[in-house]
């Protein structure tokens, strides 16, 4: 069992799920290709941020705008949500009760929404210090990059709510299983993008 070939990224359903396990291979590979193209999009937005980070045009600089405590809490929230999504994937793979699966998904949703709440507070406090997108090239690039990730997280949250509704109505069928598995990839991927954001934007900006 332990030497079973991994069919696709993310937690594999395994032979116990029969044809659903076989059907997931092509679906998950296709979603993986999308994620890699999304990664390149993020990579280039990062490049434009690094290019413009010194173009403050006399406006506020990173030191004056970033709040390390808030970013630290956001990082922990996203990391915890990655772990709770992992627990949801385990509940799916090992066919635990539907309540347990939905429970872990809801915990993940709460963590994701709390993350967005902290991030919005960050933006509002930046606006209060004249850190608006039109102020300088640096701020334009910042508000291109960080809210792009935030929008992805918001999209993931909406997707999660839809999946929970789908499971509540139709049960854990093939569609629901593949939906949860693809959202798991998306969610873990967004956490990886956040590592780059807190390192390149916040920690390097405050260093």
């Amino acid at each position, binding site marked *: 069992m332990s030497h079973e*070939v*991994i069919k696709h*990224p993310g937690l594999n359903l395994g032979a116990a799920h029969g044809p659903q396990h076989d059907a997931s291979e092509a679906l998950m590979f296709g979603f993986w290709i999308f994620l890699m193209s999304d990664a390149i999009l993020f990579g*280039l937005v990062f490049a434009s941020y690094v290019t413009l980070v*010194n173009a403050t045009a006399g406006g506020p600089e990173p030191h004056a705008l970033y709040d390390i405590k808030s970013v630290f809490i956001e990082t922990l929230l996203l990391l915890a949500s*990655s772990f709770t999504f992992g627990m949801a994937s385990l509940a799916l793979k090992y066919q635990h009760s539907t309540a347990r699966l939905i429970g872990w998904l809801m915990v993940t949703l709460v963590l994701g929404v709390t993350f967005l709440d902290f991030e919005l507070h960050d933006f509002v406090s930046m606006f209060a210090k004249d850190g608006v997108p039109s102020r300088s090239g640096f701020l334009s690039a910042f508000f291109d990059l960080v809210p792009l990730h935030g929008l992805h997280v918001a999209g993931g949250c909406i997707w999660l709510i839809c999946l929970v509704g789908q499971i509540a109505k139709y049960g854990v069928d093939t569609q629901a299983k593949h939906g949860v598995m693809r959202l798991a990839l998306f969610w873990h991927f967004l956490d*990886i993008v956040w590592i780059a954001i807190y390192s*390149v934007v916040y920690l390097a900006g405050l*260093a």
Partner: protein
Amino acid sequence: MIDQFRDDEETASRKLEERKDFYSYVWGFSLALAMTLVPFAVVHWGAMRGLSLLIFIGAIALVQMAVHFRFFLHIGWRQKREDLLLLLFSTLLMVIMGAGTIWIMASLAMRMSLPASP
């Protein structure tokens, strides 16, 4: 009787696999947590400065990304399809385009005598 025995064995091996999968997430979470705490602590208490601090933050971030890919996305060497190759190729494209952009734009900024990138 034999069927019963086989079922028990199957349940046991599944339980074992579940424990293994569970600890994979616990390991991933613990390693990622450590690699989050260290750079935040270093920046917060100003233990390092300048270029060496930037290199330190970047190196830890790269290792943490590898941990996430390994333990949360389960990317390994035994993939059936080209998942890992696709990831490495995308990384190569990103490095060429990202590093190229930063290099050219920093050089341009210097020649235009604007403040250059670090």
